[in-house]
């Protein structure tokens, strides 16, 4: 490790953090506009053209708000918690590549690549950082010395632990399909076919588990307004609250970038554009653009789900994580492994058994949930 190396990382990290911070500001704007349209409203359109200055106005307001601290809060942890929450959200995407090797460029005699770090255990890195994220939330809840905040923090832990299993197992699906844990290899393995097509239910499990990981609706138990006031950030205001909020939205962006890389081909063009001028092999600088488009669409999905589904009950959230997602993802691993084995031993066409069996397993699981809910309804009606 030389000084130049460190400087390069620092510069790239700074650029990416700035992108994430700007992205956070405009993600709030995007979410408010999209939600408004779904609710047949217009949304913020006053500050600047189309309301584009709204995030800046919000930022100024938050900066000038009073830094309030409850009298009997744990001062040190109360201050540290937002920082601990934000940190993993910013560093988690360090291993995600944004353009192929072809887009590398020379600067000061060094080859600059389009990723911050090239870890051969990239997926493991993502998993470990993802689980750190919960500490900040728990500490924020606990140090506030407020029972609602504490409950929010506790809910968050329980939820994260439950959904981390399904998340980890769907990471394994990707590792099986790509035969590597390095993110560049995973993206390149999706040259011919997205993993979202090969393993659709695995992708859905991943999306559901990440919704729970970032505490988004319909799994926003830690901040269920009706039950817990604002949950773990009840006592926060001003910039400390902004940091917690920023962590939540940066996690959304980070998770969407990761989903895009793991299941939607990352910086690679959609497979039907292969060998055209729009392919990243021909025009490498399209890579970041493809990532951006994919992230944008995935973020819309998150907003759309938030606008559609009501928050699910806490015990059902737990039951869904442990009794449905965990066995289902275990089954998917078995089916995927079997499909890969068959395609290697018999004929490559057997790889199409993976999406088929995956869909069948997903349908059966969904139906099981549906039937059990209906049975409960029936029992309630009879009682």
């Amino acid at each position, binding site marked *: 490790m030389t000084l130049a190396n460190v400087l390069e990382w620092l510069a790239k990290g700074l650029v990416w953090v700035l992108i994430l911070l700007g992205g956070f500001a405009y993600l709030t704007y995007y979410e408010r506009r*999209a939600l*408004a*349209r*779904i*609710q*047949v*409203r*217009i949304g913020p359109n006053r500050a600047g053209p189309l309301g584009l200055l709204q995030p800046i106005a919000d930022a100024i307001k938050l900066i000038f708000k009073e830094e309030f601290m409850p009298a009997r809060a744990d001062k040190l942890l109360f201050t540290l918690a937002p920082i601990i929450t934000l940190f993993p959200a910013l560093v988690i995407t360090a291993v995600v590549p944004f353009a192929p090797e072809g887009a590398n460029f020379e600067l000061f005699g060094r080859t600059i690549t389009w990723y911050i770090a090239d870890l051969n255990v990239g997926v493991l890195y993502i998993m470990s950082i993802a689980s750190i994220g919960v500490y900040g939330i728990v500490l924020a809840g606990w140090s506030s010395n407020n029972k609602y905040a504490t409950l929010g923090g506790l809910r968050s832990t329980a939820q994260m632990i439950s959904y981390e299993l399904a998340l980890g197992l769907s990471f394994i699906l990707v590792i099986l399909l790509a035969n590597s844990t390095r993110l560049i290899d995973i993206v390149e393995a999706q040259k011919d076919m997205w993993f979202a097509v090969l393993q659709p239910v695995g992708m859905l499990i991943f999306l559901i588990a990440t919704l729970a990981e970032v505490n988004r609706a319909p799994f926003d138990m830690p901040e269920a307004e009706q039950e817990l006031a604002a949950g773990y950030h009840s006592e926060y205001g001003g910039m400390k609250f902004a940091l917690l909020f920023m962590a939540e939205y940066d996690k959304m962006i980070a998770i969407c970038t990761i989903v895009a890389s793991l299941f939607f081909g990352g910086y690679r063009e959609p497979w039907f554009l292969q060998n055209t001028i729009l392919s990243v092999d021909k025009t490498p600088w399209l890579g970041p653009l493809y990532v951006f488009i994919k992230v944008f669409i995935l973020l819309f999905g998150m907003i*759309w*789900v938030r*606008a*559609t*589904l009501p928050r699910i009950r806490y015990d059902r959230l737990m039951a869904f994580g442990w009794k449905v997602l965990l066995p289902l993802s275990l089954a998917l691993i078995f089916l995927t492994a079997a499909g890969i084995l068959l395609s290697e031993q018999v004929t490559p066409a057997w790889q199409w058994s993976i999406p088929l069996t995956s869909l069948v397993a997903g*349908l*059966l699981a*969904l*139906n099981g*949930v*549906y039937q059990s809910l209906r049975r409960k309804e029936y029992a309630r009606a009879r009682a």
Partner: protein
Amino acid sequence: MRVPVLEPVIELGRGLWTTLRMMFEKPVTVQYPEQKRPVKPRFRGRHVLKRYENGLEKCIGCALCAAACPADAIFVESAENTDEERYSPGDRYASTYEINMLRCIYCGFCEDACPTEAIVLGDNYELSFTDRREAIYPKEMLLEPVPAGGAPTPQKTEPGRFTRSVPEMKDPTD
């Protein structure tokens, strides 16, 4: 054809489709300061003191509105009309008429109590003040402008013409 296995997928899809479809509907938002919606005919907004066609004030200073006001928001002081300085028909007129808009609850009892239909709750709802004292609206702010063909008050009138203070009235229609 109903496939029972697909039913949960269809249900989920229907929910998502409902919200997505809403995105393409015209927003119901009214862009308020630029675009104002007309109020309903019986809306009770800021008070207006009415005039007759010749410009004389309808208010005769009887203070029945102040008596009817449950919030005690109205203050009236009356004085004598003369033919040289006539403000309203009849003997008396309101020399001071003040409404405290911070106390007013817009119940419309003043309107009901008024024997000459002088005070009417109009359609203006854009009331804002930066000072408590600004919230007290004096008579000059409440009086409607002099109608075309009328003269401003006080008027010089011929004796014996405006002796009746309460006019003949019909039943209200709305």
